[in-house]
């Protein structure tokens, strides 16, 4: 333990330095208040033995300065014969104790040990109080965040519900208008009426109205789905299922669309895939979203799907020869609305919910999803799903 002895008297400095060292302390001496202050500012001491009466800066002033540097530093005043009043004043100002000169060495040692123990406890208590305060702040911030998150999720869910209903009506009425209009045109042409080109134009408008509304309904559906997945309000099934069926069903659906776009498409699924536990509806959504992205972002070349078992995982890889993704964006594409940022520079082809939804579903199945891509060199999406797993879906 490091003790600083402050006294203008050479005799007392000598005795205390030697005696303290004999008792196992490390002692440093200073012959004035300013010297002590600069030592305490630059070094770490466990306690200070401070003379009360010194020429220039006295013990009381020195005590005040030392407390400014380290409020917890224990200071023991060494008072002269007949100087009790000042010693008591020092105690009131925060000195730990006073001993009278010449100080009994064993009493000094005992006082030092007690003072250091008390200061150590004080520092620990302060640290604990600080930690507790920080924990409280963090806890209330966390509660607030949780609350906000919950509010956001229920807001999205209720807004999506409210949006779905009128959209369904719009689509329904638009379909009725289209059918009725087609009949009207048919009747009118049968009656030798004219205006076929105008009728075609109106029909185009109706088609556009229906397709845009369906697109909007699809977006609302995605937002609702993501909100539900995020909030955990939907429980995923945990049933044994054959992944190859899901893949092949999606592959059949998309084969035509890839062909329409002039893309070569292959899908190779191993025969002996083990069963996995999961929700077929949501896993089909993952595969659908990946295929859908490959279709959207590949203008020429190939799209290849490969499914195989590796150890206790099933690995689905979907490679395309599309425009690719810069490595800096790989992490972000799994974030919600990541395509929104491209609005001004690049026409978005969706609102960027397909991959976040896929990621969330895969995570709920205990799996992972990753991308490997370079701009201009296509993309490879890899989904890993565990064959056996603990925890709930």
């Amino acid at each position, binding site marked *: 333990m490091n003790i600083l002895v402050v006294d*203008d008297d050479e*005799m007392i400095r000598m005795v205390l330095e030697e*005696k303290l060292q004999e008792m196992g302390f490390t002692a440093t001496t200073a012959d004035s208040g300013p010297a002590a202050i600069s030592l305490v500012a630059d070094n770490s001491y466990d306690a200070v033995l401070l003379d009360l009466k010194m020429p220039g800066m006295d013990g009381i002033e020195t005590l005040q300065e030392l407390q400014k540097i380290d409020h917890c530093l224990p200071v023991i005043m060494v008072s002269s014969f007949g100087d009790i009043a000042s010693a008591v004043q020092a105690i009131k100002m925060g000195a730990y104790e006073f001993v009278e000169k*010449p100080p009994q060495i064993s009493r000094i040692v005992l006082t030092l040990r007690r003072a250091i123990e008390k200061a150590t406890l004080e520092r620990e208590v302060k640290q604990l109080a600080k930690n507790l305060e920080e924990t409280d702040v963090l806890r209330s911030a966390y509660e607030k965040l949780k609350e906000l998150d919950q509010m956001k999720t229920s807001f999205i869910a209720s807004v999506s519900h409210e949006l779905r209903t009128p959209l369904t009506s719009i689509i329904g009425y638009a379909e009725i208008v289209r059918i009725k209009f087609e009949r009207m045109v048919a009747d009118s042409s049968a009656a030798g009426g004219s205006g076929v080109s105008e009728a075609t134009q109106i029909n185009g408008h109706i088609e556009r109205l229906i397709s845009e509304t369906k697109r909007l309904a699809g977006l609302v559906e995605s937002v609702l789905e993501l909100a539900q997945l995020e909030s955990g309000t939907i429980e995923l099934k945990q049933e044994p299922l054959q992944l190859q069926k899901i893949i092949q069903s999606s592959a059949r659906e998309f084969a035509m669309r890839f062909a329409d776009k002039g893309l070569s498409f292959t899908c190779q699924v191993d025969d002996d895939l083990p069963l996995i536990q999961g929700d077929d509806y949501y896993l089909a959504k993952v595969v659908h979203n990946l295929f859908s992205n490959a279709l959207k972002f590949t203008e020429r070349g190939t799209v290849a799907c490969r499914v195989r078992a590796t150890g206790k995982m099933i690995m689905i890889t979907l490679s395309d020869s599309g425009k690719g993704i810069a490595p800096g964006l790989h992490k972000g594409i799994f974030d919600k609305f990541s395509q929104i940022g491209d609005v001004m520079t690049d026409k978005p082809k969706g609102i960027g919910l397909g991959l976040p939804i896929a990621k969330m579903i895969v995570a709920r199945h205990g799996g992972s999803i990753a991308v490997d891509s370079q701009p201009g060199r296509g993309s490879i999406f890899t989904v890993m799903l565990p064959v056996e797993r603990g925890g709930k879906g």
Partner: protein
Amino acid sequence: MDDTLHTFRSNALQWLEGDERMFDKLSALFLKNVPQQMAVLSAAVAANDLQGAELQAHALKGAAGMIGALEMRNHAAALETAAMAGETELLQQHFKALADYVAQVTEALSRT
């Protein structure tokens, strides 16, 4: 060893907790420093420099206490108090008494 020295030694060994070697070192330091301290005190008293007299008397009080010279300590304390109280007429008187004791102490310690 004469009685005076014996008394100092036994007083000092109480706070030094029996460390004779330390007592000898303190005596040597005392003998080295005291003439200079007395000279400074003498000049302060002669010049009626109260603050100077107070500080020097305080130093001598401490030194006397450490080597167990309690009478000398009491006279130094009286001088310090007189200086603090501004009782200039008492300074000379206390100084004279203190000087006598210092001479005795110095003599006793020198004989070791």
